């Protein structure tokens, strides 16, 4: 085989590998959510974050608008502080937006859901969301349910 043919085939091989890499990066992985350009950071304090993790989605109206970037525990206020990076294009959330930790499906992943408020001013870089609702912990709910049932039985 001539060296020209060999070089063409090696070139095709490398091109195929690069194409495969881009196919995996674009189609199968979350690269599109990295390339989203500018982001701004918001924080929210929760009593209980349940199973929320770093990189969990932040969504408003079911649309993913950002990701959780950091979770810390504040031992002075006894609260979990969740930092989120929100895409810059979604920068029109009113100051009284409420953040709650929700679960997708009964046993699915947990995510932060935003419920926009009615204030005139908007949340900006570094702001802290005050209106929060903690994660529903299934065991606690079942416990409360059993407890109230037991109460009914006693009456």
């Amino acid at each position, binding site marked *: 085989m001539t*060296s020209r043919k060999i070089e063409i085939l090696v070139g095709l091989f490398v091109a*195929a590998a690069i194409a*495969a890499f881009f*196919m995996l990066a674009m*189609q*199968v*992985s*979350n690269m599109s959510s990295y390339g989203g350009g500018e982001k701004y950071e918001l924080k929210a304090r929760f009593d209980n974050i349940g199973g929320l993790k770093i990189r969990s989605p932040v969504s408003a109206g079911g649309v*993913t608008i950002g990701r959780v970037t950091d979770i810390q525990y504040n031992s002075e206020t006894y609260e979990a502080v969740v930092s989120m990076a929100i895409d810059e294009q979604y920068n029109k959330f009113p100051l009284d937006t409420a953040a709650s930790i929700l679960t997708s499906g009964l046993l699915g992943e947990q995510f932060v859901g935003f419920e926009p408020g009615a204030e005139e001013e908007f949340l900006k870089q570094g702001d802290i969301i005050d209106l929060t609702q903690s994660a529903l912990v299934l065991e606690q709910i079942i416990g409360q349910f059993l407890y109230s049932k037991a109460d009914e039985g006693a009456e």
Partner: protein
Amino acid sequence: MFNGLIDRIQHVGAATIHSFRRLGRGSVFLLEVIASCTSLFTRPRLLVKQLYSVGVQTLIIIIVAGLFVGMVMALQSYYALIDYGAEDSVGVMVALSLMRELGPVITALLFAGRAGSALTAEIGLMKATEQLSGMEMMAVNPMQRIVAPRFMAGVISMPLLATIFSAVGVIGAYLVAVELLGLDSGPFWSQPQNKVDLYLDLYNGIIKSVVFGVVATWIAVFEGYDCIPTSEGLGQATTRTVVHSSLAILFLDFVLTSLMFTK
């Protein structure tokens, strides 16, 4: 009886010393090869030729294997997941397993069998027919001329092959899950996009395949260079290449996985 025991102990000791000596020779050999690789910048032609025989000629088996592994994974995970109504997760399950584990590992095993054994046989035969000593007589360094291009070609080819394997595997899974089993193509693509991380999963998989490439090619060229130059010794060296590199790949995969994916 006492003598027999001592003989046995001596046997164990000799085997241990022998394997450590080989390990030491192999490590020195690896350093020499890496040092010789600099000569490839002046002669890239040699590298391209080896990329053809090591990479391009392995491509067919990688594509066929990737396609079928992806298809089988899709079938099996479908049957397991449908009981829980979670069959939409077939895509993410196949994509994650391929990128993290199966892509690098199966590619490396096939690579050791297809390209590694060929490298050992080729270099070993050159040694047996005294071509290597002939080169030295002509003041051509066989490390630079023969070993370095083959080693480098293996190290470059492995991540390329593993990436192609994973991509073809995902396409195979798509064919089975969406075209054959009738799943919706929306969640098949969108769930991986949510779950599979570019850095954690894709890049770590590629790092894995580079490590496997170094180890598998190192073992292959060393076994060839170090073989006993007879037809029997050459056969044994080729067998050792496949066995040792497969074991090394599986062991390293465990080590790398526990370093990369446990947090």
